[in-house]
């Protein structure tokens, strides 16, 4: 039951790891939840969930796992965890000898082994089925097999909780894409070079000693600006639908940005076709990933550089009309063009990168958008120009 909570959370894509789970168990052992399910709920949330954006997922999983147990649960929730672990019925794949050994193990030790095994499996998330194969031969025979046997092994192939967790880090966008990225990376590096601004606040010790010697021992301090990039980048990316053919070039761009660690801050958000009241923190655009666009404008100051990636091709109503969102469940009275206007207005510098060439930019909606954002082609040359437009001029 308790592991259902853990795996349930992982299923929902909540990044909860062994370390957090152990923290939670320690807290339970310490009796911190007192005797109420509500406090147990809050304790679990404090230990397992590290961002309020996942609270909703936690609520859903918790409700599912602990449905109807409130009365049956009794006082000591932690006792139930340990009971569960001690109960051999929960490990059906074990031989009688192993069961005997299992009963000899104290709960702590068992938990330890279980966690160790699971931790290893997290590390090699790609080898789910291989793990089951070697599990039997591992020194942690029973401990190794029971979690894989009942929880991870079978279902893992179909539900791939690890994959979901990985997805959040855009694994799909960036693996094995290092082939043609060199040039784009170089183009993006200019985004770093041009903005080496800042005041001289760091003591240059070598120079200071040199200068002091040159000054016959009279101390002469030399300061230099700290080496850092001041560019904060907001990426707004169109995914799905008409953008599908450009998945490849766009994912290349993302890889390049990700590897470009020179950025001071970087925040990517996703939308479909046009920007409305909400944008999404992942390309899957689930409701739980929604962030109010207004919040982004409030939170990020005008110095942030905005890069919108999209083909700017959509039905005119999607851009201009109220309730224009192609997804009716997410429709809102504010037309997309108003949001685009607010974004262009709020930030000092913004660009629109279009994977389609300039020949297509005369279409209705693209023409409207070009009035709001300077538009560039998503190519090495286009990016070079876009970068110049983002950071050039003032330096």
């Amino acid at each position, binding site marked *: 039951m308790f592991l259902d909570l853990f795996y349930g959370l992982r299923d929902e894509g909540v990044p909860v790891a062994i370390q957090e789970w152990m*923290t939670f168990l*320690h807290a339970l052992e*310490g009796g911190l939840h007192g005797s109420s399910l509500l406090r147990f709920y809050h304790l679990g949330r*404090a230990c397992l969930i590290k961002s309020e954006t996942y609270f909703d997922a936690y609520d859903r999983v918790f409700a599912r796992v602990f449905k109807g147990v409130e009365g049956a649960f009794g006082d000591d929730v932690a006792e139930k965890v340990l009971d569960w672990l001690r109960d051999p019925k929960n490990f059906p794949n074990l031989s009688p000898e192993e069961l005997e050994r299992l009963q000899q193990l104290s709960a702590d030790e068992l938990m330890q082994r279980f966690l160790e095994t699971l931790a290893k499996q997290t590390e090699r998330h790609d080898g789910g089925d291989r793990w089951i194969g070697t599990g039997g031969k591992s020194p942690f025979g029973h401990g190794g097999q029971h979690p894989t046997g009942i929880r991870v092994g079978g279902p893992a192939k179909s539900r791939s909780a690890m994959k979901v967790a990985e997805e959040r880090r855009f694994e799909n966008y960036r693996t094995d894409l290092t082939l043609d990225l060199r040039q784009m990376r170089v183009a993006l590096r200019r985004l770093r070079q041009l903005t080496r601004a800042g005041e001289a606040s760091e003591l240059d010790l070598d120079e200071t000693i040199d200068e002091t010697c040159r000054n016959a021992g009279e101390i002469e301090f030399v300061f230099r600006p700290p080496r850092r990039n001041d560019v904060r980048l907001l990426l707004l990316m169109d995914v799905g639908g008409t953008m599908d053919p450009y998945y490849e070039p766009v994912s290349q761009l993302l890889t390049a940005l990700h590897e470009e660690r020179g950025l001071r801050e970087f925040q990517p958000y996703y939308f479909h076709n046009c920007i409305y009241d909400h944008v999404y923190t992942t390309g899957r655009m689930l409701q739980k990933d929604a962030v109010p666009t207004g919040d982004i404008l409030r939170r990020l100051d005008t110095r942030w550089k905005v890069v919108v990636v999209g083909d700017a091709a959509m039905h005119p109503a999607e851009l201009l009309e109220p309730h224009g969102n192609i997804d009716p469940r997410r429709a809102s009275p504010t037309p997309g063009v108003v949001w685009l206007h607010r974004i262009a207005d709020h930030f000092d510098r913004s660009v629109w990168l279009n994977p389609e060439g300039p020949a297509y930019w005369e279409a209705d909606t693209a023409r409207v958008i070009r009035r709001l954002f300077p538009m560039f082609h998503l190519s090495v040359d286009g990016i070079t120009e876009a970068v110049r437009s983002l950071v050039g001029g003032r330096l």
Partner: protein
Amino acid sequence: MSKDNGFLRFQGTPGYIASGPLVDAVNCAIALERPLLLKGEPGTGKTVLARHVAEGLGMPMLSWHIKSTSKAAEGLYVYDTVQRLNDSRFGTGDVADIRHYIKLGALGRAFAAQERHVLLIDEIDKADLEFPNDLLRELDEMRFTVVETGDEIVAAQRPVVMITSNNEKELPDAFLRRCIFYYIEFPDVPLMRRIIDVHHPHLDAKLLDQVLIKFYWLREQTELRKKPSTSELIDWISALLRAGVSLEKLEAHIPFVGALLKKEQDVDALNRFDTKGGRVPQRWEELGPKYVQ
């Protein structure tokens, strides 16, 4: 982890209204000796909580306010090369002993102290992205080495570490895994009444209603760039009381709007709303169903 429940427990203080789950989270962090990460909108009392935890537990408090230029190492110690150079130039001080020029930071002092401290690391999201990662080992093991001297500083008493974040930046996963997390939600109306009661007791009930209606209405406006927060509401009420604003006046208008709205654009937006003949609500029903009990 022992089953000993004899650790210090925070129960809240008269000056701070803390919800049950928040108290639990604080106690969980104390018992497990993990940092407590507090998130929430600005003005929900994250920093103040640390002060009251220190007060409630009777521990001294050390604060480390993070700026965008803060480095993790500064919290441990700073080697004051400039002072040493200066001393060697003018022949003052004991230049030979490098220890005189090692100045402990807030974290370093909390470790070195004999007494258990509450350590507040305020607004950790202001710093560089790598900042929290640089502190991982120190917060885990509560020890660090002064490179210049080879001295190791080990925490005699593990401090109660409280970290606040305004959510301006994502914190690294490795760091989050080590924290107990609590998100201070924006207070709902009943809690807000209790909070106001702490600061402005004996406020006229009708006036308070109007104040809250206006305040929550403003917060509902998506157009605002900066939503007013609890601390601003309390300031606003002070201003209203000092000026002796009448109930009738408050029903129709929002006086002293400068106490609530801090952005020019927001004030403009409200003025536009006024000139267009917009009417600020006077009853809870006008704010929508979730405000009607």
